[in-house]
């Protein structure tokens, strides 16, 4: 009953024979549209002729074919009433022409307009209809009005059920070639009613899947779908559509849907795929052109079959419909302020700024990730539903497509590219996605090292929260893989943790400036955050100690010191009330390292620690600081021990006597005597230190010439000062700032010690 009524009403709405009535502006737009399209076809033909210059015979054949096609179209345009196939030679002749041209060169939009209506009007028998439909390969685009007209014929129901199915399949295949879709969206309800038809249902579902926008998801439609599902059982096509509805409006669909089903829809495009490829190749004149390239239309993905779900790994492209052809038209159409601005047309930043109040997100949230403009937009809107959609989509894809440990099918390159895209988007937004964090927590225990750079990149964007289970979920498994991995892996893990700390600190500095901590989005207390940060630093300290134990590599040491370069400046640079010193397992390897680069680095770090500690002390004295400091006297004590050890080593030649750190290099003089090393006292000063000895030798060579036997012991007194200047000139900036800050140079080594204690009095006063 309902169907009958619908058919009649739709017939009344748009009579297929008549042109639907348009507004004036619309009509002119159409005209312009047509003209522009003419340009395109012209372009194609010129291209073609250029290609075929040497084949004049071909040209002639083509010309005659063109005439034949025109005749055929004229014939088909004039067909009236029911026509028999039997014995109708003219019909057969024209049908053959159309088929030949259609499958080889594609049909022009006008031709498709005529033939499609004809095929659905039921004037011919079914075999002719299906033959016609099968050869309807567009050479450029399909006009929207053609489709609307065809849909009205389809609703009238003059044709048989099999033709109807074929038509919907054709529609699914050509979906991306339809130039605009506003009117199709208006017909959404019409298509929805056809879900009742058992034969059409799977294809209609697929078509609706392609057509659905957020506005199309209505409670009554969801109810209808659920009713249908109860009646016919859990069909994959229904579930596919429901899943899409759930993506758009999670609050309307509370049903648990299987996410494991990979193919919701039957393949509809198989009938036309090969021909479309040939037509495309021919029109572009290049045999290598695949599905991805097309006729001057900006990146129209032709794989409509998989577009929305199955090939999620290929990030959906937000410009799914717009062609250069219709751009001007559309921009004139969208002058009305209240209408939404489709994101497909968003090309420049100015456009974004001008239309920011009426932007509409694309049907496929994933496409946002690739468009910097949309990321800008996401950054400044406060709509939770956007993040909900993005998160829902991403969590799904990450779990389905990227979780290597679930044994699902993945394509390595795609996963890599996808993870890279997410990481880039996070980099752009300067913010981690929560589902990425969850994904990492889930997958890192199973991680053996695949997608190393991608996973580590994601790792560095884990947001700063007072999350107590970090230890169990992240540090423990990460430590496990860290210890059993290669040197380069270790370096990149440390690097990634450094970035993570940096992100945390920048985030903290930003919010500490802006709002009081209580209002911060994470809704956590400062002490919680401080604990999280110090947990991370302690974790890195622990793993680096062991890593340096296992492989004493200067490369690794370099990465570890890079990490501590961030740590030492936390208080001054990032307003984080926390100072954590490196463990002895990191400090001493760096102090006794063989490379001047690492030694220099360490000197710089110790200098920055001094700055931070002094600043912290001053703030405590003046009580300016609102934040309670977490720096204990133990930290000051340890720092002083480190500095004493360093000065003893590098400057005062008392390496083994002056070290009071429990894990330091203090050694009894008797033991040292027994080693039989002469002058062990000065073996780590700036002249004899293995990292600096090369400089000392060069310095002497430059001073005395090469012939004289080198005696490093000569460097003392005035020469010592020159040597220090020489080191500064060789780029030892860290050493310079360290010596200048921690050692008062009145040429006496005893004095330097007294100056050192200057950093201690604060502790003593406590």
């Amino acid at each position: 009953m309902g169907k009958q009524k619908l058919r009649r009403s739709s017939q009344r709405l748009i009579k297929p024979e008549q042109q639907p009535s348009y507004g004036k502006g619309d009509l002119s737009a159409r005209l312009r549209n047509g003209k522009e399209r003419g340009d395109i076809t012209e372009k194609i033909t010129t291209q073609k002729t250029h290609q075929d210059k040497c084949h004049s015979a071909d040209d002639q054949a083509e010309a005659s074919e063109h005439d034949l096609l025109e005749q055929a179209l004229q014939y088909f345009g004039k067909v009236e009433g029911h026509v028999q196939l039997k014995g109708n030679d003219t019909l057969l002749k024209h049908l053959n022409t159309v088929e030949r041209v259609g499958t080889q060169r594609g049909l022009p939009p006008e031709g498709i307009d005529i033939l499609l209506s004809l095929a659905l009007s039921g004037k011919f028998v079914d075999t002719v209809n299906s033959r016609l439909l099968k050869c309807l390969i567009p050479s450029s685009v399909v006009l929207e009005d053609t489709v609307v007209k065809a849909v009205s014929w389809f609703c009238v129901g003059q044709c048989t059920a099999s033709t109807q199915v074929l038509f919907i399949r054709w529609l699914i295949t050509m979906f991306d070639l339809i130039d605009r879709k506003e009117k199709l969206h208006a017909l959404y309800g019409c298509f929805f009613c056809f879900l009742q038809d058992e034969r059409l249902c799977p294809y209609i579902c697929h078509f609706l899947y392609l057509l659905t926008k957020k506005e199309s998801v209505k409670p009554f439609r969801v109810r209808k779908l659920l009713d249908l599902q109860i009646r016919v059982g859990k069909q994959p096509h229904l579930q596919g559509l429901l899943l899409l509805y759930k993506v758009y409006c999670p609050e309307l669909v509370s049903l648990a849907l299987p996410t494991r089903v990979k193919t919701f829809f039957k393949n509809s495009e198989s009938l036309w795929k090969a021909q479309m490829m040939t037509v495309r190749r021919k029109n572009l004149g290049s045999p290598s052109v695949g599905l991805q390239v097309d006729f001057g239309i900006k990146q129209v993905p032709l794989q409509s079959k998989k577009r929305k779900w199955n090939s999620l790994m290929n990030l959906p492209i937000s410009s799914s419909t717009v062609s250069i052809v219709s751009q001007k038209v559309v921009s004139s159409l969208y002058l009305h302020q209240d209408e939404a601005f489709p994101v497909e047309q968003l090309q420049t930043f100015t456009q974004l700024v001008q239309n920011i109040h009426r932007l509409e997100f694309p049907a496929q949230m994933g496409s946002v990730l690739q468009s910097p403009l949309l990321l800008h937009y996401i950054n400044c809107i406060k709509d939770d539903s956007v993040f909900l959609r993005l998160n829902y989509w991403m969590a799904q894809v990450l779990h389905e497509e990227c979780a290597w440990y679930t044994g699902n099918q993945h394509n390595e390159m795609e996963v890599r590219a996808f993870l890279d895209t997410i990481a880039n988007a996070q980099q752009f937004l300067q913010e981690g996605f929560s589902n990425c964090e969850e994904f990492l927590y889930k997958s890192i225990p199973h991680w053996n090292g695949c997608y190393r750079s991608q996973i580590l990149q994601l790792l560095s964007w884990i947001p700063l929260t007072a999350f107590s289970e970090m230890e169990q979920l992240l540090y423990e498994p990460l430590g496990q893989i860290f210890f059993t991995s290669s040197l380069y892996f270790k370096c990149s893990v440390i690097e990634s943790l450094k970035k993570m700390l940096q992100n945390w600190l920048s985030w903290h500095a930003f919010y500490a400036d802006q709002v009081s901590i209580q209002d911060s989005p994470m809704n956590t207390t400062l002490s919680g955050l401080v604990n999280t940060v110090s947990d991370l630093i302690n974790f890195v300290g622990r793993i680096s100690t062991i890593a340096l134990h296992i492989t004493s590599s200067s490369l690794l040491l370099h990465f570890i010191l890079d990490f501590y370069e961030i740590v030492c400046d936390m208080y001054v640079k990032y307003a984080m009330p926390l100072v954590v010193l490196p463990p002895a397992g990191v400090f001493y390897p760096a102090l006794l390292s063989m490379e001047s680069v690492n030694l220099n680095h360490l000197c710089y770090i110790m200098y920055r620690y001094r700055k931070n500690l002094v600043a912290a002390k001053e703030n405590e004295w003046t009580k300016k600081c609102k934040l309670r400091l977490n720096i204990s006297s133990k930290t000051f004590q340890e720092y002083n021990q480190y500095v004493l050890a360093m000065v003893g080593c590098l400057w005062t030649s008392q390496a083994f006597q002056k070290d009071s750190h429990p894990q330091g290099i203090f050694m009894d003089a008797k033991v040292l005597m027994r080693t039989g090393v002469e002058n062990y006292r000065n073996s780590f000063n700036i002249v004899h230190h293995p990292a600096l000895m090369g400089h000392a030798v060069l310095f002497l060579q430059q001073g005395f010439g090469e012939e004289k036997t080198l005696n490093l012991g000569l460097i003392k007194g005035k020469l010592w000062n020159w040597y220090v200047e020489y080191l500064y000139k060789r780029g030892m900036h860290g050493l310079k700032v360290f010596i200048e800050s921690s050692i008062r140079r009145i040429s006496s080594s005893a004095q330097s010690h007294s100056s050192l204690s200057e950093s201690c009095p604060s502790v003593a006063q406590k």
Partner: protein
Amino acid sequence: MSVLKPFDKMPVLNMATVLFVGTDESCMEQLAEAMMKESKTFDVKIHLAKSLPLPAEKDHLRPRIDLIVFLINLQSQLSFTTVVSSLSHVDASFFLGKVCFLATGGGQMKHTIVEMPTVKKLADSYLSILLFSELNNLAVFCKIKGTPFPSHLSNASEIICSTHSHSPHAQKALFCSFLIWVEEDGAVQQAVSEESERDCCHTAQRLLQMLCVCAGHVPGVSALYLSSMMRRAGPISEAM
């Protein structure tokens, strides 16, 4: 009943020996091959055993074993019980860092029979670390694909996965025909095998690093030290 001891034999210069114990031979072979392919600075000897104890008659030929890896296929109860019963034939001093559990097939939640917490508990109670890996096996393949095995290959999976009654050549032939069947589904399937192969390589690298420490090739770091560091967070936090 002989008990496997870690220090009853002298080590061989620049050599490390690993013993794989598990019912899933294809997995072990795959892993062993991957380990052999990796570049390394010392000789690696790999022994495979379905269960412990090892036969006593060839004991004098066997080198000192530096690391025992127990493979547990989470999709088979047999592999778990075999490992549990084998554990009693391992000397207690092995558990000072020279034992490692490797759980495979855990990703396919639907098909796991042995539960993850059970395995974790086992590893914890033996103070040993637990690794996860997706080793490639055909059984997993078929389950992924969700379609019945083609008839002419109906027993291929069994043959390749479990019994090894065929010669290596026959196995290869079967596997090739299997790949051809897979080929129909295109490159995606090929990617699966590549992926698990990659995961296998990464697992092999990790095991080699551990072996290097366990065999005493890293000065200053003992197996006990490493394993206690690796397991530091887990049991302590649980105890607290």
